């Protein structure tokens, strides 16, 4: 185990080419002025043409006819390009041999499992929509064949199908009796807990400095998830602190006691006031994030941490993880803009929710 740990930490320390490559790719990411140009487009096709001719998405969109392509297809192409970029990065110095670097695939697997559960639970199943959004481009990297998912009829079948995958024991515990609907919330918590546990575990295999940085980066992301979910449960469902705590991810950078202080707020206003007194609240205020748009503020905070980690670190795992987050963020921004263009949302409103 010690030899294994030492070997892995050696790999992490000596991936400078990957770190350099990521910095170059980061330099090509869209900047505020690029988003401004995009928001100035009048139609989706114009926006797609801009992305094709003036941004690094040009390669991904090279074979797409931006005059006729559907908006959904353009968004799929963008998401696919991010995944392939991630694959290229992890293949570059064969980092993909390390368990940690498969975080993206595991995250996508979990996202698809949750989508499948939502689909199985739906009264009015829209198979066409479900199939449309199936990301088959990652199929050859996943631990189960995604193509079979639309053909499953029940949660029980799903559990059986996940045989020989790490998800089976988790899902089996949540299997409802007699063909009833599964508790989606419990499934989500269980799968996310598995994801972050695995992430923290594999992060621990690197040297101390790398592990510490990864714990911080991932910890902030977990905190943001917990804060947003905690706020929603408090504000919209008026749940008690203990109930909220039981449904939160049991990780994070912030101490459990401080998080509980938030969950135990009397109402939404109290929650925001308490949040304002926390480290995150002060950080949001210092950076001018509108804490009342908590979703966007949380995204911006995660973005800020990721960008700082990318610029300050030399360790490949930290840089890869941070950059993958930035890539996902960039595609989310672009999709938001495209949808705003499609539905004629004013640029000033779109700008508010962009994370840049």
């Amino acid at each position, binding site marked *: 185990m010690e030899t294994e740990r030492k070997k892995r930490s050696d790999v992490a320390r000596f991936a400078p080419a990957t770190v350099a490559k990521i910095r170059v790719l980061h330099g090509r990411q869209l900047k505020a002025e690029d988003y401004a140009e995009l928001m100035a487009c009048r139609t989706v096709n114009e926006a797609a043409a801009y992305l094709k001719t003036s941004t690094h998405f040009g390669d991904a969109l090279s074979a797409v*006819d931006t005059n006729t392509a559907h908006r959904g297809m353009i968004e799929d192409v963008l998401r696919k390009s991010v995944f392939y970029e991630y694959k290229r990065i992890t293949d570059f110095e064969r980092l993909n041999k390390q368990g940690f670097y498969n975080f993206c695939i595991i995250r996508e697997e979990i996202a698809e499992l949750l989508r499948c559960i939502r689909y199985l639970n739906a009264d009015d199943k829209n198979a066409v929509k479900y199939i449309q959004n199936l990301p088959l481009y990652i199929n050859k990297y996943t631990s189960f064949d995604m193509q079979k998912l639309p053909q499953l009829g029940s949660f029980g079948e799903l559990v059986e199908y996940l045989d020989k995958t790490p998800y089976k024991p988790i899902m089996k515990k949540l299997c409802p009796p007699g063909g009833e609907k599964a508790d989606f919330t419990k499934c989500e918590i269980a799968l996310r807990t598995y994801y972050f546990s695995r992430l923290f575990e594999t992060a621990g295999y690197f040297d101390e400095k790398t592990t510490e940085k990864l714990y911080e980066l991932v910890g902030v992301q977990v905190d943001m998830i917990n804060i947003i979910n905690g706020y929603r449960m408090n504000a919209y469902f008026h749940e008690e602190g203990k109930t909220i705590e039981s449904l939160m991810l049991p990780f994070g950078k912030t101490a459990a006691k401080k998080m509980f202080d938030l969950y135990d707020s009397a109402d939404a206003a109290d929650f925001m006031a308490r949040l304002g007194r926390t480290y995150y609240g002060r950080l949001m205020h210092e950076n001018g994030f509108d804490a009342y748009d908590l979703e966007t503020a949380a995204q911006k905070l995660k973005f800020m941490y990721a960008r700082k980690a990318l610029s300050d670190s030399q360790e490949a795992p930290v840089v890869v993880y941070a950059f993958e987050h930035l890539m996902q963020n960039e595609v989310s921004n672009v999709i938001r803009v495209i949808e705003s263009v499609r539905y004629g949302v004013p640029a000033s409103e779109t700008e508010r929710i962009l994370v840049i």
Partner: protein
Amino acid sequence: MSSIERMEYVNISGPAGLLDRTLRVISDSGSFHIEPASKVIAPSEDSYVPHDDDPYAPALAVLADISSMCGIKYSEVPCDSLKNASLQRMFKTVNSIKSRIAKKSNDMQYASDRLNENEQALTQVEHLMGLDVDIRSLMSCTSFRVSFGKLPKDSYEKLSYYEDKPFVFILLSDDDEYCWGVYFSPLSSAKETERIFESLYYERVEIPGFVHGKAEDAVKNIREHIEKYTKRRDDAQKALDELIKENKSVLCEHYTRLTELHELFALRSKAVITGDRFDLVGFVPKRSAEDFRKAFGELPEVGVMMKPSDKFDAISPPIKLRNSKLAEPFGMFVEMYGLPSYDGINPTTLVALTYTLLFGIMFGDLGQGICVCLLGLFLWKKKNMRLGAVMTRLGVSSAIFGTLFGSVFGTEELLVPVYRSMGIDFLPFRSMENINTVLYGAIGIGVAIIIISMLVNIVVKFRQKDFESSVFSNNGICGLVFFCALIFGVVSAFMGKNVMKGLYVPLLIILPLILMFFREPLGCAVAGKKFRFENGVGDFIASNFFECFEFFLGYATNTLSFVRVGGFVLSHAGMMAVVISLTEIYPHASPVIMVLGNIFVMCLEGLLSGIQVLRLEFYEIFSRFYDGSGRPFVPVKVNFGEHPENT
């Protein structure tokens, strides 16, 4: 010496029918600056300003169309053959050329459009090569919905989920991103099929109407069409090029003539027509007045009345600077700031002397000065750049001061033997060993320049009968006395002699200060006007107190500003010392370091010195006497360069 050209005010009057010929004469003279006559002669019931429609505009528009159709750039050419040509004839000529060009252009456009159409069709049809059925007969099926199109590859894999649906998709070809094919669906379930394919981002491909037969035959057919239309387009292009070549000189002649007529016609709006007579006004340099009058010899009915422009108040005369050959290039700095007023002063010679002196001091190096001079000569003579002429003068000055500093491309030893052989021990002057002298010297030059500027202001303002500015202002006699007394007092104190005793301070410092404080009322008194406290006595005292303080501060800062001259002397020497040191550290690369180092220092120091001296000129010198409110003298001339027809 520099001066402002004296102008004669001119009033030209004659029969209205001779207006165009008159405009031609004044345009040909090249020395008449026209002003709107309505400034002098107010339009009334009997008089009006002619604003007719330009009859030459349609012909020029045709020329513009020709230019945009085939990218011709017109140039000014001799057009004597069109001297007596009527407008109608010229219009007919250009129109006929346009029609012929348009026809050829349309042929070419038609061939290009068909070519594009066929190329696009080929792209589509090539993907259907696997189809062994007549495309048209498939498209005309009545029981089935048939659709040709493409699916992203990811979506093609998802078709397997719809095996139970009533449609069939036949894959014909694929590339990296898409799968091309055709689907068939019964009409009854066409809508559902369409929805499914839409969800898979299916893009329908329209097969053009002229595509017939099986895919393979259609491709062959389209390729033949492409070849045919490519040839047709190339032939049309060739014919168009030949047509343009044949007619270019004719077009340029017509362009020249029509532009001339158009510009002259536009000048009609400067005249005023009273009854059946016209009036034109403007200015002519006094030196050219006689020649201008003689030019009207062939138009005896047209009367030309002239008088000196200082006796004419209605319009201020335009400014034309007269400069000596040596100072003329520096006129560009004066024009940059703004032209002087007619009763002002042309500062070009002062700029030339001070700029050359200061730059020479700051950039002093014999070798580098020669290089700057030669570069300037090249830019001036070959590229016709005014800055090149400036650089030649600056280069010479730099070379002279470089000789005094003993600096030749940064080395300070080369000229020592020359001086010693001449018995001169005090040269070369080593700036780095005499830093104080350099800095004090720079301040001394600054003081001298400021005093000269003040003297200029005094003379100019006296001429303008502005006694407040010439006597009582901070740049007038009082300011000059105050400044000189202060400087003398400070210098004397430095040299151990105290002159600030007795009546020195009260007479030469306090009295001028008091007079400057009361400059406005005193100025009014001398001019015989009544002075009023606009905002009260308190405000007058407070504002003048602070203004006097500002004057005092201004003297100090303006004087110390010249320290930069010394600073640049030292920095130039310092930078070259670094270059020399590098050549000593890397002796094997010393020629390269020497060359690159000198180029770098020349560019950097040259640019900085030029900018700093210009700053001194504008802020420290011009601000003392110059207003820059003059209008440029622009003689009437046809301008061929900037026309819409030529862009």
